[in-house]
C-alpha cells in the first residue's frame, strides 16, 4: 500500500503540474503554448488551390509542388498575416488524392477577395523553343517547352540597356537562374544556336530573342517592350515568385470572428458543464471509485490539453468532437473496471483483492476496444480529408491517453486507498448504485 501511495502522490503532483501548465500558458499572453485554434473556431480564410501538373513530368511533380509552396509562402508573408499556414497535398493513388493541391490558411483574414488578390497576380514563366515550319506560303510557328521554367529562377533584376530608340535606355529584366537552371540554360542555348528562344509570361510570349551563342553563367536578359513600371512590376512578381506551375482557386472558406468567438465560449461552457455532470454521475453511482475516476479523468484531460498545446494540435470543431468521444472512452474504461471489481466483491473477495482482479479481468476488453479504436483512428488519419484528420488525430491521442490513464492512474489511486476489509464506511464507499451491493 505504501508503494501505491508514493505512486499516487507522484501522479497527483504531475496532475497539478499539468493543470498549472495548461492554466498558466493560457493566461500568459506571451506564452508560446496557447491553444492553436483552427479557422472554424478562430475565424479566418482558407483557400484551396489546384496545381495544374499536366505539363510537368511526374518525376518532377513533388519538387514543383514544394517550389510552389515556397513561392506562395513568400507571398503570404508579404501580405502580413500572423501565423499563416501553407500546406501541400500531393496526388497519390495510396491516399486517394487525385490532384496536387495547395492549401493556404490565413487566420484573422475574412475578406476572401482581398486574400486572393494579395496572393497576387501570379506569373508563370516559361522558356520555349520556336520551330518554324513553312507550308507553301504560310509560315507556322510552333513552340516547344524546353523544361526551363520559373522554377529554376533564383532572382530577377531591373536593368537598362540600349533600346531601339536612340538616346533612351530601354528597361530590361535580368534573370538569374539557380545552378540547375544555369546548366539547363547553357545546354539549351548551346544546342540551339540560331533558333528563337521565346520567353512566355502567363502563357503569352513577351520576348523572342534569337540565340546567338551558348550562354554560360545562368543569366538571361529579357528585352520586351517594357515600360519602366511594367518591368519593375514583373521583376517584383518574379522575385516574389514566378509560379513553377499554374494554379486555380478550387475552394475557399471564411469564418467571421464573431462566429468563431461564440463557438469557443460555447465549447468551453459545454466542456465544463459536461465534466461536472459526468463527475456527479460517477460519484453518485460509484462513490469512492467514482471520485477516484473523476480525479483520474481531470488528470487525463489536463494531460490531453497539455499534449494538444505542446505538439501543437490545431483544434477545430471536429477535433473537439474527437476529444469528447475519447473522454467517453476514458470513462468507459473506468466503468468497466469498477463493474468488474464489484462482481468480485459480491463473490466475497476483500476490496483490495477485488480491485486487483477487477483490473486484470477488465484488461482484455479494454485492450481490444482501445486497439480497434486506435487502428480505426490511424486509418482515418491516413485516408481522411483535413476535417476527418482533425478528428482522427485528437481521437487517437485521446484513446492512447485513456488506455494509459485507465490502467495506471485509476489503479494506483484505488490501490493506495482501498483497505483489505469491508467494514464500516468502506462498505458504503465501495458499494454502488442506490443500494449497498
Amino acid at each position: 500500500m505504501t508503494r501505491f501511495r508514493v505512486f499516487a502522490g507522484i501522479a497527483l503532483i504531475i496532475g497539478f503540474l499539468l493543470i498549472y501548465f495548461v492554466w498558466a500558458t493560457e493566461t500568459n499572453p506571451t506564452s508560446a503554448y496557447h491553444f492553436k485554434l483552427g479557422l472554424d473556431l478562430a475565424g479566418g480564410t482558407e483557400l484551396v488551390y489546384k496545381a495544374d501538373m499536366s505539363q510537368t513530368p511526374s518525376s518532377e511533380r513533388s519538387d514543383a509542388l514544394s517550389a510552389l509552396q515556397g513561392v506562395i509562402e513568400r507571398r503570404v508573408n508579404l501580405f502580413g498575416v500572423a501565423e499563416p499556414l501553407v500546406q501541400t497535398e500531393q496526388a497519390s493513388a495510396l491516399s486517394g488524392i487525385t490532384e496536387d493541391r495547395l492549401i493556404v490558411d490565413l487566420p484573422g483574414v475574412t475578406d476572401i477577395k482581398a486574400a486572393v488578390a494579395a496572393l497576387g497576380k501570379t506569373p508563370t514563366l516559361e522558356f520555349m523553343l520556336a520551330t518554324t515550319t513553312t507550308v507553301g506560303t504560310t509560315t507556322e510557328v510552333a513552340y516547344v517547352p524546353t523544361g526551363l521554367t520559373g522554377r529554376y529562377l533564383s532572382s530577377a533584376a531591373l536593368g537598362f540597356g540600349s533600346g531601339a530608340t536612340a538616346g533612351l535606355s530601354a528597361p530590361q529584366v535580368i534573370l538569374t537562374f539557380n545552378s540547375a537552371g544555369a546548366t539547363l540554360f547553357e545546354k539549351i542555348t548551346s544546342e540551339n544556336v540560331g533558333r528563337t528562344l521565346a520567353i512566355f509570361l502567363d502563357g503569352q510570349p513577351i520576348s523572342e530573342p534569337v540565340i546567338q551563342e551558348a550562354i554560360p553563367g545562368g543569366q538571361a536578359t529579357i528585352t520586351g517592350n517594357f515600360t519602366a513600371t511594367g518591368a519593375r512590376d514583373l521583376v517584383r512578381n518574379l522575385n516574389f515568385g514566378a509560379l513553377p506551375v499554374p494554379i486555380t482557386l478550387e475552394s475557399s472558406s471564411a469564418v467571421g470572428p464573431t462566429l468563431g468567438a461564440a463557438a469557443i465560449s460555447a465549447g468551453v461552457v459545454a466542456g465544463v458543464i459536461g465534466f461536472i455532470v459526468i463527475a456527479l454521475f460517477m460519484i453518485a453511482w460509484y462513490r469512492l471509485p467514482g471520485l477516484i475516476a473523476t480525479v483520474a479523468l481531470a488528470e487525463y484531460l489536463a494531460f490531453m490539453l497539455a499534449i494538444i498545446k505542446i505538439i501543437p494540435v490545431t483544434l477545430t470543431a471536429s477535433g473537439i468532437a474527437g476529444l469528447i468521444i475519447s473522454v467517453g472512452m476514458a470513462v468507459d474504461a473506468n466503468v468497466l473496471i469498477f463493474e468488474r471489481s464489484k462482481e468480485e466483491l459480491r463473490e466475497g473477495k476483500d476490496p483490495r483483492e477485488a480491485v486487483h482482479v477487477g483490473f486484470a479481468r477488465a484488461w482484455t476488453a479494454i485492450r481490444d476496444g482501445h486497439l480497434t479504436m486506435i487502428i480505426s483512428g490511424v486509418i482515418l488519419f491516413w485516408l481522411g480529408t483535413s476535417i476527418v484528420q482533425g478528428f482522427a488525430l485528437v481521437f487517437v491521442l485521446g484513446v492512447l491517453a485513456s488506455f494509459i490513464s485507465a490502467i495506471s492512474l485509476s489503479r494506483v489511486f484505488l490501490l493506495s486507498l482501498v483497505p483489505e476489509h469491508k467494514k464500516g464506511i468502506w462498505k458504503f464507499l465501495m458499494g454502488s448504485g442506490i443500494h449497498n451491493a
Partner: protein
Amino acid sequence: MYIVTHRSLFFWITGIILAAAIGSILIFGLPLGIDFTGGSLMQVSYQNSVPPLATIEKQVAVVPLGLVSVRTMGTNEISIRTRTMTPAEHDAVLASISSNASTTELSYSSVGPALGSQFTNKALWAIFVVILVIVLYIAFAFRKVSRPVPSWGYGLTVITMLAIDLIVPTGFYAAYAHFTGAEVDSLFIVALLALLGYVVNDIIVVFDRVREHLAKNEKMGVKEEFEVTIGKSINETMMRSINTALTVALALLVLIFFGAPATRNFALVMLVGVVAGTFSSICRSAPLLIPIAKWFTKK
C-alpha cells in the same frame, strides 16, 4: 436471460427500426451539403430584422447564379446556398444584400465541384477500410474461441451491427434534416466515424465476456448451452453498457443545449447513435451469435 429467450422479439424490433430508418432515407433523402456537391454557402446575420426571403432572393439574383436557396437560421441569420461562386461574385452578392440593411457575414465557404465529389469518395472509402480492418482485428482477437462460432463470425456480427447502428442515425438525420433544413456536412461524417468507434467498443465488451466464459468452460470441462453463456455475458455487462451510454449521452445532451450551434447537429446524430448502439450491443449483438452458432453446428 430475458433478452436471449425473447431474442426474436428484439430481432423484430430491430427490423422495424431499421425499416423505418431506411424508409426515412428513401422518402426524405439525404440533403448533401456543399462539402459533397460543391457550391458556395454564406451565412449572414442582420443587425435588425431579416427582410422577407423573397426580397433577399431578388437581391441575390442580381448576380446570375442560377438556382439559389435562401433560408432563415436562428432569429436574425440567413444562409444562402449557390453554385460555386468566384470571389468577385461572392463580393457582388454580399454588396447587393447589404445595400439596404446592416449585415455581417458570419461565414462563407465555397467548394469546387471536383473537390466535392472527391470528398464523398474519400469518406466512403475511409469508412469501408475502417470496417474491414475492424473485422480482421476481431477475427484475430477472438482466434482462440472458434466454437461454436468461428472467430470471423464475431467480426461478421460486429459488421452487421455497425451497419444497423450507422443506418439508424442516418435515417433519423434524413427526417431531422427534412424538417429543419439541416444538411449532410462533413461533421455528419465525423459523427458517424465517432459512432463507429463507440459501437465497436461497446460490442467488444460483450463479446469479450462471451470469450472469457467460453475459455473458462473449456478449461473446467463444463458443458454449457451456448444460449446460457450468451445470456450470462449479456447480464453481466449490461450495467456497464448502460452506465457508459448514460455518461456519454449526458455529455452529448450538454453539448446539444450549451455547445456551439456548429456542433449541435453532430451531437444529435451521436446521441441517437449511442442510444441505438447501446440497444445493439445489449439486445442484438450477442443474441445474433446464437443463430450463427446453430447454423455452424448443423453443418
